[in-house]
């Protein structure tokens, strides 16, 4: 649904993002996770057709965001960092306006506006002037604005920033309810947010995607299991299968060859990363198993969790939020 290939954006001489590649399947919710200034907003702006990329290309629903800008813009809903609202309009009037410029036909408009208002829980505020709304309601109007024309792809830039804990929960539930029928990209610098809302996470740091995975696997990587990087001769898929069965191994993944620093990657080699379970050291078993299975082992070295430096800058805790959730559960 959304394909991003080797996307780069350079402002003057400073690169904002470099060689960003990822894709989002239809109905999937992808979280762009990264510290502030990592390039999340730039990536999203390029996808929304607001900024042109310096290099690379991005396609949404098969249309190139730059060459077929208008076709793409019809198919996306976009919530920028600051919700784009006209303070002197009513919620209802604003959504009608947005539906109209997004090309919703006249007969359909009222239905869509009512549906968006309902979805975002804005029923009791629909005739209120936007200027008079609180920050949380404004954010919801911002989301309503992004979904009012029922676009197949939705791009949400920091949708929960600045909200109070209860509102955050509401917004997350709203986003989850949109998944499945819509393809969603959202950005955040809050780690627990992705595990709660997203099917998949792309971690972005200093303009580069450093990992793409499911939230569960990333959590494993994060919570301290040490890892091994392996270079072998042979079939990667086969090796993964073998390695997965070793006791103490929690995750096996391919390393993008672009990330190799040591030497030129060779075509007949497979490059893998093995993450061990916390407290386990399966290095010895990995070596013996690989050799026994007939793989030519060229390199096996221990690495620290590669994402550590990224995560240090992320907000990993949500104490006040957890308190609220527990309160509700009780």
């Amino acid at each position, binding site marked *: 649904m959304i394909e991003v290939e080797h996307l780069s954006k350079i*402002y003057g001489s400073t690169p904002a993002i470099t060689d960003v590649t990822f894709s989002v399947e239809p109905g999937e919710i992808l979280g762009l996770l990264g510290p502030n200034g990592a390039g999340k907003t730039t990536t999203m702006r390029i996808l*929304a*057709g*607001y*900024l*042109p990329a310096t290099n690379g290309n991005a396609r949404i629903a098969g249309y190139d965001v730059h060459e077929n800008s*208008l*076709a793409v*813009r*019809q198919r*996306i809903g*976009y919530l*920028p*960092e*600051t*919700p*784009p*609202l*006209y*303070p*002197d*309009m009513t919620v209802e*009037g604003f959504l009608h*306006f*947005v539906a*109209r*410029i*997004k*090309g919703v036909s*006249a007969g359909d408009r009222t239905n869509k506006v009512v549906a968006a208002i309902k979805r975002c829980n804005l029923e009791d505020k629909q005739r209120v002037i936007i200027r008079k709304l609180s920050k949380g309601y404004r954010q919801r109007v911002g989301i309503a*604005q992004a979904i009012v024309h029922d676009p197949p792809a939705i791009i949400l830039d920091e949708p929960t920033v600045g909200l109070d804990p209860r509102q955050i929960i509401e917004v997350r539930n709203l986003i989850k309810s949109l998944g499945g029928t819509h393809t969603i990209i959202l950005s955040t610098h809050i780690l627990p947010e992705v595990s709660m809302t997203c099917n998949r996470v792309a971690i972005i740091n200093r303009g580069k995607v450093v990992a793409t995975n499911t939230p569960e696997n990333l959590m494993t990587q994060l919570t301290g299991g040490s890892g091994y990087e392996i270079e072998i001769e042979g079939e990667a898929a086969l090796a993964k299968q073998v390695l997965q069965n070793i006791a103490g191994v929690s995750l096996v993944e391919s390393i993008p060859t672009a990330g190799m620093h040591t030497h030129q990657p060779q075509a007949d080699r497979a490059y893998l990363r093995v993450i061990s379970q916390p407290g386990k050291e399966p290095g010895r078993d990995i070596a013996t198993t690989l050799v026994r299975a007939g793989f030519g082992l060229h390199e096996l070295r221990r690495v620290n969790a590669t994402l550590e430096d990224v995560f240090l800058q992320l907000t990993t805790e949500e104490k006040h939020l957890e308190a609220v959730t527990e309160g509700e559960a009780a």
Partner: protein
Amino acid sequence: MGIVLSNIIAIYRRELQSYFVSPLAYAIAGIFWFITGLFFVMILLGPDGILPAVATIDLQAQQGVPIPPIDVPYEFIRAFLDRMGWLLLFILPILSMGLYAEERKRGTLELLATSPITNWAVALGKLLGVLTFFTTMVVPMLVFEAIAISGSNPPMSPSIPLLAHLGLILLAAAILSIGMFISSLTDSTILSAVLTFAVILLLLLIDLIAKIVPAPVGEALGYLSLLKHYNTLIQGIFDSSSLILFASYIFLGIFLTAQSIDALRFQRQ
């Protein structure tokens, strides 16, 4: 085509609606009506007004001095709209200053730029919106003019006031269009108003500059003068070159606005 039209109407309606809920717009309209009312009284009754002048002429005529008759309503319309042209210089930059600067400041430009709507459709819708607001500001003035014209004997040809007001609207559209472009260059409304004021002042006075500059260049510059063409129209003279000049200014403003919004996206930091 239908989609484009629908988009223009959407932008137009939003823009117009924003004026009708804006205290600033009402303040401007109030000041405008007050000053035009002042003009009305001054032109007719002031020390250099038309009526005292006519009284003098009447007196001279009674004494047997042959003086050509003077058409008071015509003189009034001309003088009234002439002053109006200058008033626009102060009023219109305030109306146009927020057209894009506000959108940039609020971040709503990002919404417009990521919607399936072209830059020039946005610009055209906005220009039509602010122009409509200005036109509604002008409507009450027609009362003054109706008072003056009703005394006309023989009755004035309707083409004269019609053409004069067309001139007023065209002048306003040209100024607003340039103002809109300037507004698209900055996210400060004040800066936008001041710059627009300076540019429009220059375009109004370019006539005077043209007189100093040697012939071919001077003549060309003189042709660009907004005021000169405005004066032709408010005298009731139909001159297609004036219409073309105003249309060019309007088109140029819309074109430059669309370009500047495009450029903004390319260099944005």
